């Protein structure tokens, strides 16, 4: 639950959503991301820091030189969020099943609907 909150929080910012969207097509450098998102390099650097802290995004490649570093999506946080929704779906599926059983039992007692 805490992980999901962190994920949603990171994605509450439109620029960061745009970064995630851009990274879906493949890894990119910070410079490319800044240009595509029409934001400054320092601002993009801050956004990438937030995304990395939540584990949404990871850096790969040349560690020593920030300009050569590429960013890409990590799948774990997305799976966690999807898993949460899957649980919600399972919960309602179970409740509706119980509703059906009760409604039909009751209907038979009354001699049909």
């Amino acid at each position, binding site marked *: 639950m805490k992980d999901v909150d962190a994920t949603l*929080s990171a994605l509450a910012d439109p620029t960061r959503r745009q970064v995630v969207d851009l990274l879906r097509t493949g890894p990119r450098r910070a410079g490319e991301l800044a240009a595509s998102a029409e934001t400054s390099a320092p601002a993009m650097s801050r956004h990438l820091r937030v995304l990395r802290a939540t584990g949404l995004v990871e850096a790969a490649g040349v560690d020593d030189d920030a300009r050569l570093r590429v960013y890409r999506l990590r799948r774990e946080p997305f799976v966690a969020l999807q898993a949460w929704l899957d649980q*919600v779906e399972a919960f309602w599926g179970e*409740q*509706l099943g119980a*509703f059906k059983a009760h409604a039909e039992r009751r*209907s038979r007692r009354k001699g049909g*609907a």
Partner: protein
Amino acid sequence: MSSTDSVTTSVEVAVDPTTAFEVFTEEIDAWYQRGPHSWKNPERAVAIRFEPGVGGRWIEVWDEETGEGYDFGRIKAWEPGKRLLLDYLIHDGGHVTEVEVRFEPTEGGTRVMLEHRGWDALPPAVAAAGVANVQKGEPVLLGWFAEYLEKEPR
């Protein structure tokens, strides 16, 4: 499927839509499954009920005598035999989502469709004050996740 910003599930039940709506609302306490995820406070919960009509509460009753309990949310639409629309408070964060239940006649009875939506409009618990735009329901987020998961094999 739980793919975009909503979770949907449905069931077909062998009673007419009017009866289905009645059973769903008036008799929720009889069919609602008790479990750790079913209640805000599993130790205190003794019943669950809807207060009929728009503005009515969807309440988890803790004390029948005093009426003390927890509001899951308010009823936003109450259309017997057709539709029920509810706020649904997500636990541990105060996030409001929305549940719509539709009752559609079929040959053998009623198809009851439940949609729990508004996940992509959740105001994140730890978000800074400047993220109010999310509350307005920007068309974003969870649709991506589904696409992303489909594109990349596990």
